[in-house]
Protein backbone atom coordinates (compact mmCIF):
# COMPACT_ATOMS: atom_id res chain seq x y z
CA UNK A 1 0.00 0.00 0.00
CA UNK A 2 2.82 2.35 0.91
CA UNK A 3 4.53 1.82 -2.43
CA UNK A 4 1.29 2.46 -4.29
CA UNK A 5 0.80 5.83 -2.67
CA UNK A 6 4.44 6.67 -2.08
CA UNK A 7 4.35 9.97 -3.95
CA UNK A 8 1.20 10.96 -2.08
CA UNK A 9 3.08 10.32 1.15
CA UNK A 10 5.99 12.42 -0.09
CA UNK A 11 3.63 15.27 -0.99
CA UNK A 12 1.99 15.01 2.44
CA UNK A 13 5.37 15.18 4.18
CA UNK A 14 6.47 18.23 2.18
CA UNK A 15 3.13 20.04 2.51
CA UNK A 16 2.99 19.40 6.27
CA UNK A 17 6.45 20.83 6.84
CA UNK A 18 5.75 23.75 4.51
CA UNK A 19 2.62 24.65 6.49
CA UNK A 20 4.58 24.46 9.72
CA UNK A 21 7.26 26.68 8.19
CA UNK A 22 4.69 29.30 7.16
CA UNK A 23 2.94 29.10 10.53
CA UNK A 24 6.13 30.13 12.31
CA UNK A 25 6.42 33.37 10.37
CA UNK A 26 5.92 36.76 12.00
CA UNK A 27 4.55 39.83 10.28
CA UNK A 28 7.03 42.45 11.43
CA UNK A 29 5.47 45.35 9.54
CA UNK A 30 3.87 47.70 12.08
CA UNK A 31 1.84 50.85 11.29
CA UNK A 32 5.01 52.86 10.68
CA UNK A 33 6.36 50.22 8.32
CA UNK A 34 3.01 50.08 6.48
CA UNK A 35 3.15 53.84 5.88
CA UNK A 36 6.69 53.66 4.51
CA UNK A 37 5.60 50.75 2.35
CA UNK A 38 2.73 52.88 0.98
CA UNK A 39 5.16 55.73 0.20
CA UNK A 40 7.45 53.24 -1.54
CA UNK A 41 4.62 51.89 -3.68
CA UNK A 42 3.36 55.32 -4.74
CA UNK A 43 6.84 56.68 -5.39
CA UNK A 44 7.88 53.78 -7.62
CA UNK A 45 4.78 54.19 -9.77
CA UNK A 46 5.93 55.49 -13.18
CA UNK A 47 9.39 56.32 -11.80
CA UNK A 48 11.77 53.60 -12.93
CA UNK A 49 14.72 55.53 -11.48
CA UNK A 50 13.47 54.95 -7.91
CA UNK A 51 14.83 51.71 -6.48
CA UNK A 52 13.07 51.70 -3.13
CA UNK A 53 12.08 53.76 -0.10
CA UNK A 54 12.78 52.85 3.49
CA UNK A 55 13.44 54.29 6.90
CA UNK A 56 17.08 55.39 7.14
CA UNK A 57 17.11 53.44 10.39
CA UNK A 58 14.35 51.38 11.93
CA UNK A 59 14.40 52.83 15.42
CA UNK A 60 10.92 53.73 16.69
CA UNK A 61 11.87 57.40 16.92
CA UNK A 62 13.16 57.66 13.35
CA UNK A 63 11.77 60.54 11.32
CA UNK A 64 13.99 60.07 8.29
CA UNK A 65 13.04 58.58 4.93
CA UNK A 66 15.72 57.32 2.57
CA UNK A 67 14.88 57.07 -1.12
CA UNK A 68 17.40 55.08 -3.14
CA UNK A 69 17.57 56.15 -6.76
CA UNK A 70 19.39 55.19 -9.94
CA UNK A 71 21.86 57.83 -11.12
CA UNK A 72 19.79 59.26 -13.98
CA UNK A 73 20.38 62.51 -15.82
CA UNK A 74 17.55 64.99 -16.38
CA UNK A 75 15.72 64.27 -13.14
CA UNK A 76 14.91 67.12 -10.77
CA UNK A 77 15.86 65.51 -7.47
CA UNK A 78 14.55 68.49 -5.47
CA UNK A 79 11.17 67.98 -7.07
CA UNK A 80 11.35 64.28 -6.18
CA UNK A 81 12.10 65.20 -2.56
CA UNK A 82 9.06 67.52 -2.57
CA UNK A 83 6.95 64.68 -3.95
CA UNK A 84 8.23 62.36 -1.20
CA UNK A 85 7.21 64.95 1.39
CA UNK A 86 3.72 65.23 -0.14
CA UNK A 87 3.20 61.47 -0.29
CA UNK A 88 4.60 61.02 3.22
CA UNK A 89 2.30 63.72 4.62
CA UNK A 90 -0.75 62.20 2.94
CA UNK A 91 0.20 58.89 4.57
CA UNK A 92 0.45 60.42 8.03
CA UNK A 93 4.23 60.83 8.15
CA UNK A 94 4.66 64.45 9.17
CA UNK A 95 7.79 66.63 9.29
CA UNK A 96 10.06 63.94 7.95
CA UNK A 97 13.65 64.34 6.86
CA UNK A 98 14.00 63.10 3.30
CA UNK A 99 17.28 61.83 1.88
CA UNK A 100 17.56 61.09 -1.83
CA UNK A 101 20.48 58.69 -2.16
CA UNK A 102 22.30 57.12 -5.07
CA UNK A 103 24.82 54.32 -5.01
CA UNK A 104 28.42 54.99 -5.93
CA UNK A 105 31.27 52.75 -7.01
CA UNK A 106 32.94 53.25 -3.61
CA UNK A 107 30.04 51.43 -1.95
CA UNK A 108 29.03 54.47 0.10
CA UNK A 109 25.78 56.23 -0.78
CA UNK A 110 25.92 59.72 -2.20
CA UNK A 111 23.28 62.09 -0.82
CA UNK A 112 21.76 63.91 -3.77
CA UNK A 113 19.18 65.91 -1.83
CA UNK A 114 18.44 66.35 1.85
CA UNK A 115 15.14 68.00 2.69
CA UNK A 116 13.15 68.73 5.83
CA UNK A 117 9.45 68.33 5.06
CA UNK A 118 7.16 71.10 6.32
Amino acid at each position, binding site marked *: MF*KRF*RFLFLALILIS*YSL*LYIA*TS*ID*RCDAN*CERISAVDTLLKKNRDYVYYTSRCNWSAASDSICVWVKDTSGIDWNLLADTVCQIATVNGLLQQKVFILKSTTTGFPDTVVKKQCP
Partner: protein
Amino acid sequence: MSVFVKKIALHVILPLIIGLIIYFIARPDTWLVQKLLQSRFYFIEKNGDILSTGWFTKFVVFNGPDFCWSYSITSALLYWKFFSSIKIPYFPLFIFLLILMQELVQLLFTRYFTFDIMDIVAAISAFILSWYLNKEYV
Protein backbone atom coordinates in the same frame (compact mmCIF):
# COMPACT_ATOMS: atom_id res chain seq x y z
CA MET B 1 4.85 -1.53 18.40
CA SER B 2 7.09 -2.19 15.44
CA VAL B 3 10.61 -0.90 15.32
CA PHE B 4 9.69 1.37 12.44
CA VAL B 5 6.84 3.05 14.32
CA LYS B 6 9.22 3.62 17.24
CA LYS B 7 11.73 5.12 14.86
CA ILE B 8 9.13 7.52 13.44
CA ALA B 9 8.01 8.48 16.94
CA LEU B 10 11.58 9.14 18.07
CA HIS B 11 13.13 10.72 14.98
CA VAL B 12 10.16 12.46 13.32
CA ILE B 13 7.35 13.15 15.81
CA LEU B 14 9.37 13.86 18.96
CA PRO B 15 11.60 16.58 17.38
CA LEU B 16 8.47 18.18 15.94
CA ILE B 17 6.85 18.27 19.38
CA ILE B 18 10.01 19.64 21.02
CA GLY B 19 10.20 22.39 18.38
CA LEU B 20 6.55 23.26 18.96
CA ILE B 21 7.00 23.34 22.74
CA ILE B 22 9.89 25.82 22.35
CA TYR B 23 7.66 28.00 20.19
CA PHE B 24 4.72 27.82 22.57
CA ILE B 25 6.88 28.71 25.56
CA ALA B 26 9.23 31.31 24.17
CA ARG B 27 8.02 32.67 20.85
CA PRO B 28 4.63 34.31 21.47
CA ASP B 29 5.00 36.62 18.48
CA THR B 30 4.58 33.98 15.79
CA TRP B 31 1.44 33.27 13.82
CA LEU B 32 1.37 29.73 15.15
CA VAL B 33 1.21 30.74 18.79
CA GLN B 34 -1.02 33.76 18.30
CA LYS B 35 -3.65 31.77 16.41
CA LEU B 36 -3.58 28.65 18.56
CA LEU B 37 -3.17 30.19 21.97
CA GLN B 38 -4.29 33.73 21.21
CA SER B 39 -1.40 34.91 23.39
CA ARG B 40 -3.33 33.98 26.52
CA PHE B 41 -0.38 32.39 28.20
CA TYR B 42 3.29 32.14 27.70
CA PHE B 43 6.10 32.08 30.13
CA ILE B 44 8.39 34.61 28.54
CA GLU B 45 6.52 37.76 27.65
CA LYS B 46 8.87 39.43 25.23
CA ASN B 47 11.85 38.41 23.19
CA GLY B 48 13.68 41.27 24.91
CA ASP B 49 13.74 39.15 28.04
CA ILE B 50 15.41 36.37 26.13
CA LEU B 51 18.02 38.68 24.66
CA SER B 52 19.36 39.43 28.11
CA THR B 53 19.91 35.74 28.89
CA GLY B 54 22.88 33.47 28.10
CA TRP B 55 23.90 32.15 24.70
CA PHE B 56 22.58 28.65 25.36
CA THR B 57 19.07 29.90 26.14
CA LYS B 58 19.18 32.12 23.07
CA PHE B 59 20.33 29.17 20.95
CA VAL B 60 17.55 26.94 22.27
CA VAL B 61 14.86 29.60 21.79
CA PHE B 62 15.90 31.00 18.41
CA ASN B 63 17.73 28.10 16.75
CA GLY B 64 16.32 25.10 18.64
CA PRO B 65 13.12 24.83 16.57
CA ASP B 66 15.11 24.99 13.33
CA PHE B 67 17.35 22.22 14.62
CA CYS B 68 14.41 20.06 15.69
CA TRP B 69 12.41 20.53 12.51
CA SER B 70 15.39 20.05 10.21
CA TYR B 71 16.17 16.85 12.09
CA SER B 72 12.56 15.75 11.77
CA ILE B 73 12.18 16.41 8.05
CA THR B 74 15.54 14.77 7.27
CA SER B 75 14.45 11.65 9.15
CA ALA B 76 11.00 11.68 7.55
CA LEU B 77 12.42 11.92 4.03
CA LEU B 78 15.06 9.24 4.67
CA TYR B 79 12.34 6.86 5.91
CA TRP B 80 10.14 7.75 2.97
CA LYS B 81 12.89 6.91 0.51
CA PHE B 82 13.77 3.67 2.29
CA PHE B 83 10.20 2.38 2.36
CA SER B 84 9.24 3.59 -1.09
CA SER B 85 12.16 1.59 -2.54
CA ILE B 86 12.84 4.22 -5.17
CA LYS B 87 16.36 4.57 -6.42
CA ILE B 88 17.17 8.27 -6.24
CA PRO B 89 20.87 9.00 -6.54
CA TYR B 90 22.21 11.58 -4.12
CA PHE B 91 18.88 11.73 -2.29
CA PRO B 92 20.51 13.02 0.95
CA LEU B 93 21.98 15.84 -1.13
CA PHE B 94 18.44 16.85 -2.15
CA ILE B 95 17.41 16.88 1.51
CA PHE B 96 20.48 18.94 2.36
CA LEU B 97 19.67 21.47 -0.37
CA LEU B 98 16.02 21.62 0.74
CA ILE B 99 17.08 22.40 4.30
CA LEU B 100 19.60 24.98 3.13
CA MET B 101 17.02 26.56 0.82
CA GLN B 102 14.40 26.86 3.59
CA GLU B 103 16.89 28.99 5.53
CA LEU B 104 18.25 31.03 2.62
CA VAL B 105 14.78 31.85 1.28
CA GLN B 106 14.28 33.88 4.47
CA LEU B 107 16.60 36.49 2.98
CA LEU B 108 13.90 37.24 0.40
CA PHE B 109 11.06 37.57 2.92
CA THR B 110 12.60 39.63 5.69
CA ARG B 111 9.20 41.02 6.64
CA TYR B 112 8.10 37.57 7.78
CA PHE B 113 11.29 35.71 8.67
CA THR B 114 14.56 36.49 10.38
CA PHE B 115 17.59 35.16 8.58
CA ASP B 116 20.20 33.98 11.04
CA ILE B 117 23.45 32.26 10.15
CA MET B 118 23.09 30.21 13.34
CA ASP B 119 19.86 28.77 11.94
CA ILE B 120 21.88 27.41 9.03
CA VAL B 121 24.44 25.94 11.43
CA ALA B 122 21.62 24.38 13.48
CA ALA B 123 19.88 23.00 10.36
CA ILE B 124 23.07 21.50 8.92
CA SER B 125 23.98 19.99 12.30
CA ALA B 126 20.51 18.46 12.51
CA PHE B 127 20.84 17.05 9.00
CA ILE B 128 24.21 15.45 9.81
CA LEU B 129 22.92 14.03 13.11
CA SER B 130 19.79 12.58 11.52
CA TRP B 131 21.79 11.13 8.66
CA TYR B 132 24.24 9.53 11.11
CA LEU B 133 21.57 8.10 13.41
CA ASN B 134 19.49 6.80 10.51
CA LYS B 135 22.34 5.66 8.28
CA GLU B 136 20.78 2.20 7.78
CA TYR B 137 17.95 3.97 5.92
CA VAL B 138 20.21 6.10 3.72
